[in-house]
């Protein structure tokens, strides 16, 4: 499997993702946002960070960058796309995923380990995790509060597009285990076709025991 990691001005998790992908045997190249051509890839990763300093709205300017046209084409052909944190924000701004990520309900930048429940493991991104298993992965964001219309939330539920939900250590999904105010405790969703995945937690920060956790590695192992 070959992957491309897109680097925007202000991306800061790009190299961590490269290290994680390579650790799990995925050949990875870095692609600059201004490039016109995407190298042949099975997977494109949009990394975390603060692309364009979060100006206007998080991810909005990056979503209009030159390489994104190629990324959108890649996804239309069925290629895999994964957006982590700021990458998830870029995905919703580009229309590759529905909904929007707004300011955390408590107005705080939250940087800590949280637990998420894998509510859908029948995806190309979570197949190595057990259904309803609980993963401990860090989050680090100010705008991770997933918002969508009631109709859209209904569609996401009907189509099994909610993949990760914030929960407590024993797997309860409730208000207390919701760090940022996300509707339905949403931490990660997939598009209807199943090839575009966006998540706020950082699996690359939990992909090696040296980093204090390995639960994120299940995401990288699932990629296929």
């Amino acid at each position, binding site marked *: 499997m070959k992957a491309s990691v897109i680097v925007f001005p202000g991306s800061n998790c790009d190299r961590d993702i490269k290290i994680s992908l390579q650790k799990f045997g995925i050949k990875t190249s870095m692609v600059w946002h201004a490039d016109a051509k995407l190298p042949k890839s099975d997977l494109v990763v949009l990394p975390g960070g603060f692309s364009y300093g979060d100006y206007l709205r998080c991810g909005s300017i990056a979503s209009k960058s030159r390489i994104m046209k190629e990324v959108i084409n890649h996804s239309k052909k069925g290629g895999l796309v994964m957006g982590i944190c700021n990458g998830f924000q870029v995905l919703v701004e580009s229309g590759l995923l529905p909904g929007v990520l707004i300011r955390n309900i408590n107005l705080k930048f939250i940087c800590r380990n949280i637990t998420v429940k894998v509510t859908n493991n029948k995806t190309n991104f979570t197949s190595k995790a057990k259904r309803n298993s609980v993963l401990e992965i860090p989050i680090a964001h100010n705008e991770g509060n997933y918002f969508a219309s009631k109709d859209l939330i209904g569609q996401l539920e009907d189509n099994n597009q909610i993949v990760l939900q914030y929960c407590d250590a024993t797997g309860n999904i409730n208000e207390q285990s919701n760090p940022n*105010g996300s509707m339905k405790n949403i931490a990660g969703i997939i598009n209807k076709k199943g090839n575009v995945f966006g998540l706020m937690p950082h699996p690359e920060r939990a992909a090696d025991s040296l980093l204090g956790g390995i639960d994120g590695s299940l995401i990288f192992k699932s990629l296929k």
Partner: protein
Amino acid sequence: MKLQVIVTLKKDVLDPQGSAIKNSLSNMGFKNIEKLRQGKTFEITIKEKNEKVALSKAKEMCEKLLANMTIEDYSVKAIKE
């Protein structure tokens, strides 16, 4: 021609920043605020003499970049320089 674009959150979208500002104002003694919503303004100077054309360009800018239509509304108007 100079244009003013105002982008605001849709009515049913939570505005935590607006609420925090409202609370702060109320702590400062402004007790009679019923509602406060935060938004953004853009002043755009465009090389275009026809107001109708300029406004339609600004609307296009809003829908493509300046506003996120999932959660935001926008308004555009020409302003005197």
